[in-house]
């Protein structure tokens, strides 16, 4: 993978040129005590962009999969996703790239057709990811064999150094951006051994710290293997009885939860087909007409949520539909913790033997 160095001054110069060309730019900014993606409309905001922070509070999911949108009408009218000239999302973390890969698999690459709304947004978006500068207590990407720095799935990746960035090029779209940088007058130079060393040292230090923090959750079995023997576990009932309040918070904050509900509503002379995010822990989610419900209990629905992410998705696409971002734990009023749940299942399985 090609790597180059760009200084902050040069990069800001490039950003300014993109704003002048009316590209849409989103980047992580600090808002109150939260880091979130904000639209950058003024070069004055460049200084506030956080490249070396941690995952944003909300994932990149909603950029590609809107919380609510009209997808068709009867009679037919021209419903089409908005076309973006160019949109850049910067500061995307490794965990969110993993989540985008989950969406790519289900919506784009391996579905029966590419889902057109997702496809168009995905193709018109340039993703500039960046290494994490620190981690949170809830982070556990390393338990899922990921790293706190992107290794794939980006157009460009930025590793923050003292006064600039190492830029890794990950795709043809990344090449395009490098070309645009050159045309904007930004100077890109070769990465020096000292800079390489700084990147490696930062990455290694944080990875080690995360592994250390997650040591207590290390279990010998892989999560999908554990799921295969956990269908009858008592853990699901415990989660249902003592923890889950069915608020849907985890599913909305989750960067990989991609399920949705279609419903029709009358508007004037049209019947509008609306697509909204949906949650498999809702009672009526799998219910069929006539009332039969394949997952009538909360415990069966919670189990399904875990199994979809850690077993079924692995069986279908050979990857976990969990990025280890820990957002679900952060929002959960009942403090349902994925790491803890698997640790508990592992314990239960051990005892049973």
């Amino acid at each position, binding site marked *: 993978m090609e790597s180059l160095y760009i200084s902050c001054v040069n990069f800001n110069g490039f950003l300014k040129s993109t704003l002048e060309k009316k590209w849409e730019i989103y980047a992580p900014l600090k808002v109150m005590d939260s880091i979130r993606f904000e639209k950058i409309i003024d070069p004055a905001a460049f200084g506030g962009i956080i490249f070396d922070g941690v995952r944003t509070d909300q994932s990149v999911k909603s950029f590609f999969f809107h919380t609510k949108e009209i*997808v068709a009408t009867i009679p037919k009218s021209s419903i089409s996703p908005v076309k973006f000239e160019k949109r850049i999302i910067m500061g995307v973390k490794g965990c969110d790239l993993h989540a985008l890969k989950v969406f790519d698999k289900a*919506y784009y690459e391996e579905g029966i*057709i590419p889902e057109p709304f997702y496809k168009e947004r995905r193709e018109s978006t340039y993703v500039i990811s960046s290494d994490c500068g620190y981690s949170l207590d809830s982070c556990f990407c390393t338990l899922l064999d990921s790293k706190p720095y992107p290794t794939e799935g980006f157009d460009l990746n930025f590793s923050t150094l003292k006064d600039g960035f190492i830029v890794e090029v990950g795709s043809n779209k990344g090449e395009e951006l490098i070309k645009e940088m050159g045309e904007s007058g930004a100077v890109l130079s070769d990465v020096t051994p000292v800079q390489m060393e700084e990147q490696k040292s930062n990455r290694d230090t944080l990875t080690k710290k995360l592994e250390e923090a997650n040591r207590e959750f290390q279990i010998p079995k892989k999560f999908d293997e554990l799921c295969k023997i956990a269908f009858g576990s008592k853990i699901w009932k415990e989660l249902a009885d003592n923890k889950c309040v069915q608020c849907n918070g985890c599913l909305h904050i989750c960067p990989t939860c991609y399920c949705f509900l279609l419903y029709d509503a009358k508007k004037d002379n049209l019947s509008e087909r609306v697509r909204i995010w949906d949650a498999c822990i809702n009672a009526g989610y799998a219910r069929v007409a006539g009332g039969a419900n394949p997952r009538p209990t909360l415990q069966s629905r919670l189990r399904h949520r875990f199994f979809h992410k850690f077993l079924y998705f692995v069986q279908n696409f050979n990857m976990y539909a969990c990025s280890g971002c820990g957002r679900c734990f952060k929002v959960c009023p009942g403090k349902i913790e994925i790491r803890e749940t698997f640790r508990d299942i592992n314990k239960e399985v051990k005892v049973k033997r």
Partner: protein
Amino acid sequence: MKENPYQPVEAKLLEVTDETPNIKTFVVKPLEEISFQTGQFMELTCPGVGEAPFTPSSSPSVKDKMEFTIMKVGGVTQTLHELKPGAIVGLRGPFGKGYPLQDFEGKEVLIVGGGVGLAPLRSLLLTLLEEKEKYKKIMLCYGARSPQDIVYKGCVSGWCEVKSSLDVRLTVDTDEKNERPKGCGVGLVTTTCDSLGLDLKNSVAIVCGPPIMMKFTTLKLLDCGYAPQNIYLSMEKNMSCGLGICGHCMLDKYFVCKDGPVFTYEQLKDIPDIWT
């Protein structure tokens, strides 16, 4: 965007036939031609109300019309049952995998239906009869709750007449007023699977009906000696998007809308709770 998979094609309701007190057959004419394979399903929209999945009950060889036999059980079907000829509905699809007809060729085909579950099987049966020389034998076992609950009353007697190629066994769970048609027994549909007289090594069974009927019929067929890979089941789940994405129809790792709705029992046998 070239094609919007959420956009239904408009279709005109041509004819409505009462089958039973709560089941009607709807003949619709799509305003753009839709071709499908028998066993694949469509999403049928009642504008402003919603859409629901149904497998056509007509043969795919009829190109300009489609038939759907629908029981009144929920919001969409309630509205459908109130529609009169001329009304406009929407159709999306077809979705999923249909019956693998090539795997049935040269075999003795047993079709077992329960209640309104005969709808997709009627499409299959009509398709098989169009090329009946390809199949060694075709046998239909159909059970309904009572004589009033038998669907396709007219056709069923017609099917009985093509005896040379089609063997029909009918049964009703109960017949208090002694109103069942000639040749129709009393008992659960599983009773019709006794002494089938089929060459089970060279036979496939196709089952569709309510979950409880599917469960016991499958167990019965296994008992008879059918191999799990020769039993084909139509799994009716809450199919919605049809694209294998929205998640509502998930059955273990499968998306019924994409991987089904027809599965062999071999594919499903290790899944806990498949009959709920």
